[in-house]
């Protein structure tokens, strides 16, 4: 039993990171119909920037805040320099642009930072807490609570604030949004910035557990994309459920079978779900969006 709990806690921790990456996909997809494969690089930039600022003597909290701000700026620049000029290009072209951007960002990270694996200390100590026989890292709780807080804040932003609703309106009907005076270009910029900030926060929260290096973005983007598809691209609740599910499947497979099969098991489950429900688990919400 304690073994099972152990796998659940590690699965949820990894799953929360996937959920945040999936949420990043969703934020950008909703605002612009772009599937941004550079999403994983935001996580990498969040972690790596924090590492280097911290190693240079910046207090950890300040390094984290700066890393999120810098990454958000990178997200905005990605939109301004690569995506916006290609407005109207086909979906495939836009995906290729974002893949190109991710390779570029990885290259820059390799030069600005280095090729080593890094971490910074956990926020509140490294000693595991024992819950019902399972050992849980305090940082895992930070990841879970932080993830929940990010989803919660964004939920309030989109349901309570006028700007949040303006982003939703832009996603729902760009023409109509312009006709009520919404600057839809600014809403896209905001979405890219938000999405990058969410990715960076995931990197900041997870790096003490998962470690980071210049090349972690590609794998995370794939997992986050899979989680977003599993939960239905464009649905925030789907991102949350898809991410946690993916993390749990991986942890269970790694725990009970072999970690060699964890990626394969995850993708088999995703392919099966998408075969039965092509729109993903929250597919009806997607149909409504159109």
């Amino acid at each position: 039993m304690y073994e099972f709990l152990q796998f659940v806690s590690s699965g949820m921790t990894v799953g929360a990171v996937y959920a945040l990456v999936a949420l990043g996909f969703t934020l950008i997809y909703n605002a612009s119909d772009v599937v941004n494969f550079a999403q994983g690089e935001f996580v990498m930039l969040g972690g790596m920037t924090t590492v280097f600022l911290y190693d240079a003597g910046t207090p950890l909290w300040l390094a984290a805040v700066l890393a999120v701000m810098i990454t958000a700026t990178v997200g905005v620049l990605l939109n301004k320099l690569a995506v916006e000029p290609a407005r109207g290009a086909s979906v495939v072209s836009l995906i290729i642009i974002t893949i190109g951007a991710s390779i570029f960002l990885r290259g820059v990270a390799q030069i600005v930072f280095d090729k080593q694996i890094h971490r910074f200390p956990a926020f509140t100590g490294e000693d595991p807490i024992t819950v019902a026989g399972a050992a849980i890292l305090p940082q895992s709780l930070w990841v879970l609570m932080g993830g929940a807080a990010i989803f919660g804040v964004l939920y309030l932003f989109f349901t309570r604030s006028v700007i949040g609703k303006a982003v939703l309106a832009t996603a729902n009907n760009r023409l109509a949004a312009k006709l009520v005076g919404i600057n839809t270009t600014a809403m896209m910029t905001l979405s890219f910035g938000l999405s990058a900030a969410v990715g960076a926060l995931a990197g900041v929260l997870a790096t003490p557990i998962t470690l980071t290096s210049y090349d972690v973005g590609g794998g995370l983007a794939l997992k986050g994309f899979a989680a977003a598809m599993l939960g239905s691209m464009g649905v925030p609740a789907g991102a949350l459920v898809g991410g946690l599910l993916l993390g749990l499947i991986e942890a269970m497979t790694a725990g009970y079978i072999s970690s060699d099969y964890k990626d394969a098991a995850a993708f088999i489950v995703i392919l099966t779900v998408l075969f039965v429900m092509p729109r993903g688990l929250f597919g009806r919400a997607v149909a409504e969006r159109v």
Partner: protein
Amino acid sequence: MLSVKDLRSRYGRIEALHGVDLEVKSGEIVTVVGANGAGKTTLLRCLSGVQPASAGSIVFRGDDVTRVAAHRRVGLGLAQSPEGRQIFTTLSVEDNLRLGAFLHDDPRVEQDMDEAFALFPILRQKRRQLAGGLSGGQQQMLAIARALMTRPSCLLLDEPSLGLAPILVAQVLDVVKSLKSLGVTLLLVEQNAFAALNIADRGYVMETGRITISGEAEELIADPRVREAYLGI
């Protein structure tokens, strides 16, 4: 109020407006009538700035807005209820109206919303429902109400009667007429020429991207060419 000179616009290589001249004076209801594909929607899209003009000029209340971004024209007082309603289907009726007031952040928004509900009482009943679930007529009312929430001095209406049952057409056009007394200047685009000319002060007839006839509404209703081509008389 609104002065359009030699306006041209194209979709790719194909020109859809071949030099349109049009004038709307403060307080008027002006209508543009014409068959399907004449270019009426393209004209309104250019006026609102969601479609670029390739030549010509649009002057609104003294400002040349030909190159002004769409969302800024709304701020200047030029609003549109577009063809096909284009409501925010995934948001509530109330949120649609609040977004109509996106540029306004003051207590008058509540008052404006009450006025919109007074014009279209059904929207008050449905205020918490998703706009996508409204009937076609209700969606049309919402589209007009949302445009009014922007506090326009000039409102462009693209085929508000399209696809509505005859009784609703009359109701919607009655409201359009009543907007005039609220001080809103109106440019109404319609295929339903008779209904539109009936409530308008002046009218323009558009054919394949050009204005071919213009005049007082009564003159147009009496004009044999208009009667034959558009009034089915």
